[in-house]
């Protein structure tokens, strides 16, 4: 009955903008997952947990510094670093011994980590909802063609391309980036020319996890920081990586765009059944491109 009942140009434009800011978070998390998947061949189910830890760390740092703007900005830097430290420990301590195992083993292993992290978060932060505010300059909204657009979402729209650019520079213009791309294609060959593949893997793993932490930190002011936020994101991130092409960073961009935009436009077009839009898009993509839209590194 209310199919496409309230679509106006301004509303559509608005939905696209809002959808793009959601895309930012999805892209940041999915690109980390994709990086680890592409280079290390680990389907890291615990990626969502690291995103959750990133959000909780943001809360802790921001609250420790009084909950104001400076607290948030520092948290935005410190929380991903904290997640990075956690990831160094688990990579050096555990993962680095398991790279030769088959995927199913690694999948189960990382799944075990989601359970461990889930309980750890409960032990450390308890089960109450946590929430932090966006820094003052990004609070509230401004009008775009008569409809409100939250300032914080504008900030996300700026951050997204910056992270994409940074990742591109890292993987294409730096030596370690080039090595890691080579390791993704043929890890034995890279080892054979005298490069310590194990440390390259560690580096990539940490970068991927820092991205998860950054995603968690960025999302913290817009939603509830609570247990369970890991499950939601990990499913979406995996879908994005799959439709984009496993291990392909631009695939993550494309997948996140498809997922984020179909979601927000679906809400406008057919609000009662909005939930199915992004998943239908995933199905359509997979029917026509079973290996993902862009070239997968697998």
């Amino acid at each position, binding site marked *: 009955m209310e199919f496409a009942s309230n679509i106006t140009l301004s509303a559509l434009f608005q939905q696209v903008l809002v959808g793009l800011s959601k895309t930012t978070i999805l892209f940041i998390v999915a690109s980390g997952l994709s990086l680890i998947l592409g280079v290390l061949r680990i389907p890291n189910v615990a990626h969502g947990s690291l995103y959750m830890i990133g959000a909780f760390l943001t809360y802790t740092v921001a609250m420790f510094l009084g909950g104001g703007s400076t607290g948030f900005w520092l948290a935005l830097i410190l929380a991903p670093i904290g997640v990075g430290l956690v990831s160094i420990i688990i990579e050096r301590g555990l993962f680095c011994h398991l790279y030769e195992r088959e995927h199913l083993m690694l999948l189960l292993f990382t799944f075990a980590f989601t359970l461990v992290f889930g309980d750890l978060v409960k032990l450390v932060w308890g089960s109450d909802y*946590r929430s932090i505010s966006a820094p003052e300059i990004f609070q509230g909204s401004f009008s775009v063609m008569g409809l409100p657009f*939250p300032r914080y979402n504008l900030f996300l729209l700026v951050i997204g391309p910056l992270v994409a650019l940074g990742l591109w520079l890292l993987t294409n213009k730096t030596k370690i980036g080039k090595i890691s791309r080579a390791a993704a294609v043929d890890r034995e060959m890279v080892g054979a020319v005298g490069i310590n593949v194990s440390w390259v893997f560690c580096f990539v793993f940490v970068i991927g996890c820092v991205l998860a932490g950054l995603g968690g930190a960025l999302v913290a002011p*817009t939603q509830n920081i609570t247990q*369970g936020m890991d499950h939601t994101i990990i499913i979406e991130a995996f879908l994005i990586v799959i439709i984009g092409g496993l291990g392909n960073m631009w695939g993550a961009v494309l997948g996140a765009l498809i997922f984020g935009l179909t979601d927000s436009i679906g*809400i406008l077009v057919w609000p009662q059944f909005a939930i199915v839009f992004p998943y239908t898009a995933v199905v359509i993509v997979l029917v026509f491109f079973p290996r993902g839209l862009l070239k997968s590194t697998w």
Partner: protein
Amino acid sequence: MKKACLAVTVLFCFFILLFIYPLSSDARPIKVGIIDCYSGPASTYTNDVRDAFKLAVDKINAKGGVLGRKIEFTTRDSKFKVDIGLSAAKELIMRENVDILMGTINSALALGISDLCKKEKLPFFATFSKSAKITGAKGHRYVFSMTENTALAGKAGAVGLAKRPYVKYWIAGDDYEYGHAIADGVWNNLKQLKPEVKLLGQSWWKVGEPDFTPYITAILSAKPDAVIIATGGRDCVPFLKAAQATGFNKRMPFFMHTATELSTLKPLGLNAPEGVIGTSNYHFFYPDTPENNSFVKEFKNVYGRVPKVGALYGYITANFIIKGYEKAGKVNSEKLIDAIEGMTIDSPIGNLTLRAYDHQVMFPMYMGVTTKVPGYDFLMVKDLVTLPGKDVMPTIAEIKKARGK
């Protein structure tokens, strides 16, 4: 010789135990089994139920218990899963021999335990599950609801909204049982109370939806007069956050059951939207009566925090059990049920009656609007209106209809 001595001593001790055991079992404590979700986000609600229950039980035990018997309770974590909760319920009944079961914030589990208790003929006090089916369509002699439900909340929302001038509505909510039940409850009652209302459209999102901004902007472009938000539990906080970020509350009035509850407002701090219309069963500052103030003080002394709505549910559950056994004069399930049917007890929010027909506690509902109050680092509620229990309860005729009679 030594061995024989030892054997005799052991045998002797064994016989003593054998004799003492039946004696002591006569004054065996009354056992209550609590099954609830103590892990995950739901525990912010369920911990208060347990803690306030303990508060009331400790008080009566210090006075020597009920009918000379102490009340003991054991908890089991259902992890929000029906199968885990149900097997815990069976274990509590068979191994722990509990006299009473209570708990669960999960409606599906509450209905499952209710069914089990009907077969076992054991009283079950549902403390936080909001499904109207518990005392409605699926109600029976052994189940009691110690909390408001979707029928009550829906009717309360409708009664409150009908007094306001809005005509064009939009409904949005969690796409599951609770969301739809609340939305239907509000809407069906509102249509009866004010036939000119019009529904422009609906949006439904998945439970645990992280970002509500796209939903809000879509609703704004439809330009209704007011919005009914049928979301509960953990989705309330992110929704209000998105409402604050988009200025939704300033552009459009919206009603959300539990928006005025402390569990929702506290995590948001001062950065929460003002002017949101909400309903709740309990506020630590309202009603401002000596009973409520002393309950808040007592709770705060023991646990170092102010009680949330769950505390009221836990506290009255304990009191219905205590008063029920006292009235029954005997620890017997059937006698207890006869005793508490239609019983009225004192509570922090005044007298509460358990309706005899459907075993639903007749809660008043407080409707108010969120506001900032100096001295608090979270939003408070103003313009509180009490919607008395008898006005917001579904009628017995409606319950009979739901039960197919």
